[in-house]
């Protein structure tokens, strides 16, 4: 396969890049939803991220990407113990119109027909375990698949009961969805499931657009040389992610930051606790990426728009997921908090 366009060579789109990095640092954040026009580099960024992710170790022969430290996690690991090998973290595409069989896995028809053997053929969910599941045009996804994905994403386990098969295997992945809001809305249940949401648009500055085209041209003329020229910044970014992944569990958040988060969510009228939890988690990941160990209010402010904009109570006469509202409240709460302290 050709080398993907380097992540650090993407012009602008800072919020999207930041959100993807946060999701790579803390898998439990709950994924990223990228909404915006066609041709704004959404897919490019996700594929670039795949090349950036640190490798994961698996047992060879395991079709479910189980970690070698898990015991008997999947049907394969129960039967054989292969050597531990390092492989690239999976970034799996969920194509529009994929059948349920392909997503959850099904009876291996080939084996069943030829060898008469009843064997489970893992689907995309198994392949995405410990990696990323990328859904382009998530708002056009069939309802039944959306329900299924939600269920698996929430439990981290894929249970298959069909065609005489009974299989369960772990499926913990980071959902990354992209789509164009003009093509249809997303159900709020699915919206809420995404940890972070960012909105992208094509750059409206001539300079920036020209830079995009120039880099794209350079990449297309000679992919190897172009990727090589960004090798240093890519390595730096990868090391940053690896360090942050190790450090994130140790990051602490002082009470003042937690209170600030609570106040923010209350003011915005965010339903449920999921928003608040994600906000704090994202702030910690942000802090870990910066190489610090104690989250500050600044971390929180930096991630608040992407963690909260899609959780505001829905008002049919207001724009869906408005970042402006979050920013406004941030300003208010920020000034109040400074007065109180």
């Amino acid at each position, binding site marked *: *396969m*050709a080398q993907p366009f380097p992540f650090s060579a993407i012009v602008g789109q800072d919020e999207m890049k930041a959100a993807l990095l946060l999701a790579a640092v803390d898998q439990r954040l709950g994924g990223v939803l990228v909404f915006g*026009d*066609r*041709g*704004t*580099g959404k*897919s490019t960024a996700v594929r670039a991220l795949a090349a950036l992710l640190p490798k994961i170790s698996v047992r060879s022969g395991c079709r479910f990407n189980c970690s070698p430290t898990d015991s008997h996690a999947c049907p394969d690991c129960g039967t054989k113990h292969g050597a531990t090998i390092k492989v690239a973290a999976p970034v799996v*595409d969920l*194509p*529009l*119109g994929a*059948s*349920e*069989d392909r997503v959850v896995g*099904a*009876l291996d*028809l*080939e084996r*069943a*027909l*030829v060898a*008469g053997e009843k064997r489970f053929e893992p689907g995309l969910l198994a392949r995405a375990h410990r990696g990323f599941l990328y859904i*382009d*045009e998530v708002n*056009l996804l*069939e*309802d*039944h698949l959306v329900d299924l994905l939600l269920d698996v994403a929430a439990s981290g386990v894929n249970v298959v009961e069909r*065609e*005489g098969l009974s299989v369960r295997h772990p499926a913990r992945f980071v959902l990354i969805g992209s789509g*164009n*809001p*003009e*093509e*249809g*809305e*997303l*159900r*709020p249940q699915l919206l809420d499931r995404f940890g972070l949401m960012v909105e992208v*648009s*094509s*750059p*409206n500055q*001539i300079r920036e*657009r*020209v830079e*995009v*085209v*120039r880099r*794209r*041209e350079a990449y*297309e*003329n*000679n992919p190897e040389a172009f990727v090589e020229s960004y090798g240093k910044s890519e390595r730096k970014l990868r090391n940053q992610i690896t360090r942050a992944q190790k450090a994130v569990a140790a990051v602490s958040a002082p009470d003042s930051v937690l209170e600030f988060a609570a106040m923010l969510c209350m003011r915005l009228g965010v339903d449920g606790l999921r928003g608040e939890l994600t906000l704090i988690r994202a702030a910690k990941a942000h802090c870990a990426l910066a190489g610090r160990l104690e989250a500050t209010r600044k971390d929180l402010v930096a991630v608040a728009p992407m963690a909260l904009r899609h959780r505001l109570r*829905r008002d*049919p*006469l207001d*724009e*869906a997921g408005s970042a402006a509202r979050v920013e406004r409240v941030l300003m208010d709460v920020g000034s109040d908090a400074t007065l109180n302290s």
Partner: protein
Amino acid sequence: MQHSIPEVSDRWADALLAARLLSVFGPWNAKENGNLQLKGIHVRARCGPVLDAWLSELGRLCPVVPKSRFSATIDAERLVGGLDLAATLDAGRPVYERGLLAGIHDGIGIFAMAERAEPVAAALIGDALDSGFSAGEPARFALVAIDEGAEDDEKLCARMSDRLALRLDLSGVSIRECETTLAIAEPRKLSSSVIPVVPDAMMDAFAEISIAAGPGSMRLVLHMATVAKAVAALEGAGEVSSAHAVTAMRLVLGVQPSAQAEESREPEQGEQDQTPEEPRDSSADTPPEGNDTQSMPDPQELQEMLVEAAKAMLPDIGEFFRADRGRLRGGMVGKAGKKADEGLRGRVIGHRQRKPCSAARPDVIATLRTAAPWQKLRGRDLDSGTDLKIRKSDFRYQRRRQPTQSVSIFAVDASGSTALDRLGEAKGAVELLLADCYVRRDEVALIAFRGERAEVLLEPTRSLVRAKRSLGVLPGGGPTPLASGLLKTLEMAIGLRRRGMSPIVIVLTDGSGNVALDGQMNREAAARDTQAVAKQFALTGIAALVIDISRRERETSRQLAEMMRADYCRLPRADAHAVSGLVSSYMREG
């Protein structure tokens, strides 16, 4: 030389140029051309001799490149390949079928009826165009998407059209022209592999034009730059001149010079391979020098000139792209013949022998049950063998029935007689219904009629964002073209039904039209026309509801409902909540 034959229209000249560009810069030549490549052409043309002539010309220009023609009815499975069930059974070992996309590697895929492509097929093709791979196999090809869409809502979906660099419109080209030019275009080899340079000012101009085209895709800039370089390289130029750039813009935007553009810019009307002399328009006071580097006007001027040229071609480029951004939903046009019970989802309603759709898997239990009685006859040793003898004819597939999607079309009387506030309430009702839509996965459309004719304010959509944008400006007042309002509604409803949806029409009116279909203010003619359209409504059997919103009860709207065989109800104070509640319950009951 083409310009020596005056009958050749610009359109046909551009078509030939596009074919030649593709023949030289097709992906199969990427290596020789330093990776400068064009991945396809979006051709808007109806089936006919002109299209045939163009295709055969394309074939003549690239004789050795394999071509493969497929149409929108192709299964997604065929595009990427997979296990061939029947062959596997016969052979007793897995037999794989190679995907069509991988099969046209280094070739041209001619995609007929591309506007009817299923979203899945479009997604697969788009992905292969981007990555050059399909199902893990190399699939680097040029796509010629033939878009036969007649109506505005029948267009190549944006997922594909956005990725194709060139755009052609063959409508209006006469048969005679294609004959005259067939002998002219000859294959050309690129003289040098040096890729022409796009000057900074020109790139700025491309970027500016793409910004004017609206908040769309970045691919437009990329396409313009690539095509400009290709046009220049075809002439052996080392740098892209303004004439190349103008030609490139024309080919990428797929437009013809309008009348006003002709005046400012006649030199480069059709021809590229004439002299490398610089055709100039507004900057005529800086004449081209005969030197190699083709003296450019100063950067600022060049940028302004190109932007002007684009404006001359397309006076309102933003509007052009809004209208042309393909069908937003990306779905296929027309699901004629596709029945609601042939899907992969929904309740199981039985079994059948034939595959209901390509992605269907055989039902194992039902298949075994069918095969069981035949085992002895087929010579299976019941005592020892475990080998089941299963034939192709034993396969059984589940039949499922899924509910079809409904679309409510609001036809709202926005004339003076029903007053503005009704329109406001109808708008409110649409928004309330939309807010509710994600639950039921239904869509809403809005048609308003006033003045001389009816206008579609909102195409069927599920998107609040879009709805609000369209509903923002809402005209009101004037006479009542009831007949034309009903006609437009009927057309939309029939179109939607053809696509496999179930339309429900809600007419908000007082039932008295005073403008006939031809736009004349004539009460009698208006009544006649209304009656005729209402009868058509009754014939099609589309579910409809007439809501009488006149302040005093009148017979006219009840009569209208009867003629349309529609249900009738009276809501003198039509408020948004009442209307949306009524429609909701109406839709649920079906």
